[in-house]
């Protein structure tokens, strides 16, 4: 097992290197310039701009810049933001808690909805409940998050005035009130992301359950006289969850991606909004670092999914 993990980690190195080369080249070739805002500022002479470009090494050839970046990365230096003039890793660490909080809660919400609904729908396929659940699931994953986000704002903030739509990181309260405020302001973004996730997950849980529920051993279990609940939870669900776990693990990086839009709409100071603002201001080191983090997440969660697979189903051996 540990041998397998080690091997997978070693394989990950060249693929991460490859990803970093592609990312770097694409970013270097992309048009735009971190000092573009200076261009229309009559106070800043063009020479100053040129000097800044030279200072940050923007005029070096691409391969040199890549090697610099790689070397720095190996030494744990994530780079230096052109725009904020501070280290990229501090910038990312600052943004991480908000993203983890929102995405984590959204994922939990999605699971809390998807598993019971999916399981129950599978036990009574084509019943009224199943039909309704299906309809909502279709609506849920057909509506993009930026649309539901705006819809929520219009309904709950503007019309009803129940919830704030600007996410704030410094709530001026302590103790229980702070917790309540944190929850209150996260309701909309978490619901938007969570419901979107839940929709596709419900469909997946349902079909995974249906695949298993028809197998002979389930009939055997029932024939032994076990109750419906025991059969479903102990015999069917355990096996049906194997592909679901994989799906969830593989979806986590995608959730980070989906959060980018949501973070922008609700002004959540997370990694996603950092990525967007950095792209808009052409802050290449930050864009590079954030996209690289996403790439690492994909590789990592792939590995986790594979390991979990083996753990959940001992028939699958990892070599």
């Amino acid at each position, binding site marked *: 097992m540990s041998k397998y993990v080690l091997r997978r980690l070693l394989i990950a190195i060249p693929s991460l290197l490859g990803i970093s080369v592609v990312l770097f080249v694409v970013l270097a070739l992309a048009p*735009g*310039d971190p*000092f573009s805002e200076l261009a229309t500022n009559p106070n800043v002479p063009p020479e100053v701009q040129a000097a800044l470009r030279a200072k940050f090494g923007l005029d070096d050839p691409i391969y040199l810049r890549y090697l610099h970046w790689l070397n720095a990365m190996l030494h744990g230096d994530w780079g230096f933001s052109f725009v904020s003039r501070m280290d990229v890793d501090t910038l990312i660490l600052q*943004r991480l808690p908000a993203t983890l909080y929102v995405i984590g809660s959204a994922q939990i919400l999605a699971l809390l909805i998807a598993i019971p609904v999916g399981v129950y729908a599978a036990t009574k396929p084509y019943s009224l409940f199943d039909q309704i659940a299906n309809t909502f699931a279709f609506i849920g994953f057909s509506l993009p998050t930026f649309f539901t986000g705006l819809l929520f704002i219009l309904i709950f903030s503007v019309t009803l005035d129940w919830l704030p739509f600007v996410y704030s990181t410094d709530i001026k309260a302590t103790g229980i009130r702070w917790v309540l405020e944190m929850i209150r302001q996260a309701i909309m973004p978490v619901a938007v992301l969570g419901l979107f996730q839940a929709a596709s997950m419900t469909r997946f849980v349902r079909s995974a359950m249906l695949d298993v529920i028809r197998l002979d051993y389930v009939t055997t279990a029932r024939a032994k006289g076990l109750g419906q609940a025991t059969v479903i939870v102990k015999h069917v669900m355990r096996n049906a969850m194997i592909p679901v776990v994989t799906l969830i693990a593989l979806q986590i990086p995608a959730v980070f991606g989906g959060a980018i839009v949501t973070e922008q709409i609700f*002004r959540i100071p997370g990694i996603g909004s*950092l990525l967007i*603002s950095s792209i808009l201001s052409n802050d290449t080191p930050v864009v590079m670092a954030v996209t690289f983090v996403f790439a690492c997440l994909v590789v990592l969660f792939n590995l986790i999914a594979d390991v979990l697979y083996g753990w959940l189903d001992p028939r699958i051996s990892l070599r």
Partner: protein
Amino acid sequence: MLDKELRSMIGKVKDGRMDRRAFIKRMAAVGLTAPLANQILALGGIAMAEGPQVYKPTKRGGGGALRLLWWQGPTLLNPHFATGTKDQDGSRLFYEPLACWDPDGNMKLVLAAEIPSIQNGGLAADGKSVTWKLKPGVKWHDGKPFTADDVVFNWEYAKDPATSALTIATYREITVEKVDDLTVRILFNKPTPFWADAFVGAPNTIIPKHLFADYKGSKSREAPTNLSPVGTGPYKFVEFKPGDLVRGQLNPDYHMPNRPYFDTVEMKGGGDAVSAARAVIQTGEYDFGWNIQVEDDVLLRLEKGGKGKTVYAVGGDTEFIALNFTDPNTEVDGERSSMKTKHPLFSDPAVRKALSMLVDRESVKKAIYGRAGRTTANFLNGPEKFVSKNTSWEFSVEKASKILDDAGWKPGADGIREKDGKKLKIVYQTSINGPRQKTQAIVKQACQKAGIDVELKSVVASVFFSSDVANPDTYAHFYADIEMFQIPLSQPDPSQHMRRYLSINVATKENKWQGTNFPRWVNKDYDAAIEAAESEMDPVKRAAYYIKANDLMFQDTVFIPVQHRLKVEAAANNLRPIISGWANETDNLHDWYREE
């Protein structure tokens, strides 16, 4: 022009026979009222007055929290590194300049004790030096005293190229010397009619010597105080998250009485202009929203909700269409729009004139800018004193067609005019931005009616405004026939703005398109007017030179001014923000309060 009359009026003010307000009113009557009307008086020997004070609160603090929404949040808090106004705005919460600008463009004292004038000996008669007296007893947030050493240090810090400060242009050609602990003198190497640049306004706030002295030059980026400012301002620094949040709390030792009003200040970043307008005007979650460049229709609809309103400030920003005087379609020595070529269509003045008649400025105002725009014939729209009254504009497809007919441009079989085998087909580029694309459509429609074929091109703003030498789509390359954008006028004086279009500043491959004269317009009279203005100490003559320069641009149709744009902000109904079209939004923050 009114030279004599003006002089006698200045004399009257001096002797007290005429009061200052009457003087400014008279100036207004002859089109000379101005942010710089006061500088006229200063140079005429009268002290520049502070603008009227409307600050009502009678004690410091007690105003609760002030919540500001900047949809592009500050990304750094060292004014010398500020890449955009957002960074200057954020820094200005904590750092202060010697003086700032009020809504009328009057100078307002901050860290200075008095406004330099010839009378108080602050201003040299030859315009080659200015002496500032500093306010005594001002303390940095850490308790250290603010002195002339700090001011001198800022100059040394910024002018050092290794620091790579973006304020270098302001400081590299001046010399700053300490006279005594509370007096500094700025020496210019040539007569400088507009002396209020260094240490004035939000872009030129002062950082403390004792915290930055070790980080001058190449170590500048390592200074811990780059991210946690210690200033002299009304608010003390609490927290900074780049792009997201800046927080400050009341400075109990602030040097102005009864100020600030608010106990805490918070500047939240992120999102977009429309939702920012919503959060201030409609739901009231925030007190103030910055730079609400949103269509007027939307704003009017939001205002019906009634928790907030829009606030406008008049400055000198002009949205314009620039005409290319070189040929963008012919390549000479690896460069298009080369100075060795002439534009095949625009070399005929009739075409340029017809084009300017096809820009329906009134419709653009009605359909797009609404309350945030004014129609204008001038490229230079402020300060008022520099605005030409000799120009006019009109929109008429018929007249434009007639001009083209008379010049020999006849419609071809496809309805597009042509002459000597050259068709009137032009490419019209601008950055991607809702109002700009709508303006493009309005202009294109009118041009079509007059037999001019217009191809529209929109470039992402980050590319359009970039200095990337390799990218042909920047505004400086100008590989199109006409292009539209605006260049902000960041101080109440046109000198920097008008200098851009000197013949020596033409953008070419040779100077890596860093030349600022992107229309590549060359006019000797213009060069002469600008050079004369730059060393002219007589404010009236100086204004006349700039007016002449503007009129030369008008006659040659170098620019077609589309709209004189106003600053648009959103504010809660009970907030009394002080916004100047000549300064950053936070430049007067110490005077903001809330009506109870």
